[in-house]
């Protein structure tokens, strides 16, 4: 584990830059991680981020692409436009929830 200063706050992060404690998350932290990833957050990004956070609180795991699209009005195509390359991973990182474990 390492620490990083995000939006003037000292937080614990994993090697890949995911927040260790989802409760450390703030909207400003989201903006800063997004910026590092080259993403300018729009309302639609925030829809996904809020979904990810609420879903994590409810289920205790990070949503997969299939889960996001099944339980919201966001399509896979749109997810790839909003969060290029690995949307589930990237959205989780910005939303301050753990890296999805869909990958075993």
């Amino acid at each position, binding site marked *: 584990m390492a620490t990083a200063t995000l939006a003037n706050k000292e937080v614990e992060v994993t090697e890949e830059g995911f927040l260790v404690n989802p409760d450390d998350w703030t909207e400003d932290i989201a903006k800063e991680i997004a910026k590092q990833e080259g993403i300018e957050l729009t309302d639609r990004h925030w829809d996904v981020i809020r979904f990810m956070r609420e879903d994590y609180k409810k289920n205790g795991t990070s949503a997969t692409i*299939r889960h996001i699209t099944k339980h919201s009005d966001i399509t896979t195509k749109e997810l*790839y436009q909003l969060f*290029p390359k*690995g949307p589930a991973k990237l959205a989780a990182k910005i939303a301050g929830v753990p890296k999805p474990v*869909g*990958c*075993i």
Partner: protein
Amino acid sequence: MKKLVILGAGTAGTMIANHLHKRLKHKDWEVTLLDPNPDHYYQPGFLFVPFGIYSIEDTKKPKQKFIPSGMQLVQKGVEAIEPDKNQLILEGGEKLSYDILIVATGSRIVPEETEGMKDRLWRKKIFDFYTPEGAVELYKALQNFEGGDLVIHLTEMPIKCPVAPLEFSFLADWYLTKKGLRNKTRITYVTPLSGAFTKPVTTKVLGEVFARKNIALEADFMVEHIDNEKQKLVSYDEREVPFDLLVTIPTNMGAKVIETSGFGDDLYFIPTDHGTLQSKVAENMFVIGDATNVPASKAGSVAHFEAEILIENILAYIDGKEFPEKFDGHANCFIESGFKKGFLIDFNYDHEPVPGKFPFAGIGPLSLLKESRLNHLGKMAFRWIYWNMLLKARKIPGVTARMKLSGKKFPK
């Protein structure tokens, strides 16, 4: 008489039946297995069928042969599970009640999930090797293959045996070299993951194997549809990968009956306690093998370790005691790498595969995360071990249900 029903007599169902046979007091309990399919396939053998190393007959035995005496195997499918009534609805509408249910219905491929997969080119240019039919058809296609773009594609995680598509790629490289077609073939591995495998150390080691074997890696590729006209995979971010022969691992899902019964997750895997293997659906329902949603590999080795844990927990449950055992996610997989060599990886929920020795620390004789001829021999011996030891719930010397930390070199 109390009734224990095992739903599915594949790898996991058969293993737990054999454990129960050894440990459960027979006079109080009647054990029934349900499975519509009379054949037990050694599925790891499907990898070798396309290359003519095994025939499909080499991978098949009658299920009945592995059902312990005193237990009944009913050759019927189950249409729905009704956990609140402790009963099953069998095909034809008949009902069967139970005191304890163990679900071992595995996973299946669902090519229909991807537009254009089960289309005009299905089993003409697009193949799977996760079914007996698919493996046999792919064997024929490889026989007639004359070179071009061979694409191995992983649709979506999780899949059972996540190393199988890698092994297929390595064996294809060997097979085409042997046939003198390798210099006429471009092999590309297409995956939604960011690298060759899911875990960092293994991904790095296997990435080097890809480079050495000249297999191209197309990572972070989530397929949107397959263009049958132009013979191309098209991703959500509009990348295209052309193919002359496509070998795909379609989306894997839990059994249809889980979908119908309405308690599965998004992919119809059953919410299961990661440690005890009790379902989160009902207290008297346990889950084993590929049917669970636990974050472990979907593999026969995992089912084997789970069975050693589950038997203790079920016996305790029957006696009204606390669950004594917790599954740690232990998986142990050979990775065939072609030219009579292989890797071996050993890992669990918390520890990714690393180099070392297995099963005995310092001695081995098998090497972890390192290519060797002995690992290949291990892989080939696995079929015998499967039929004669694993299914019969016999212990393998030195191999424990819980992963050993000794003998492994973890990164600092």
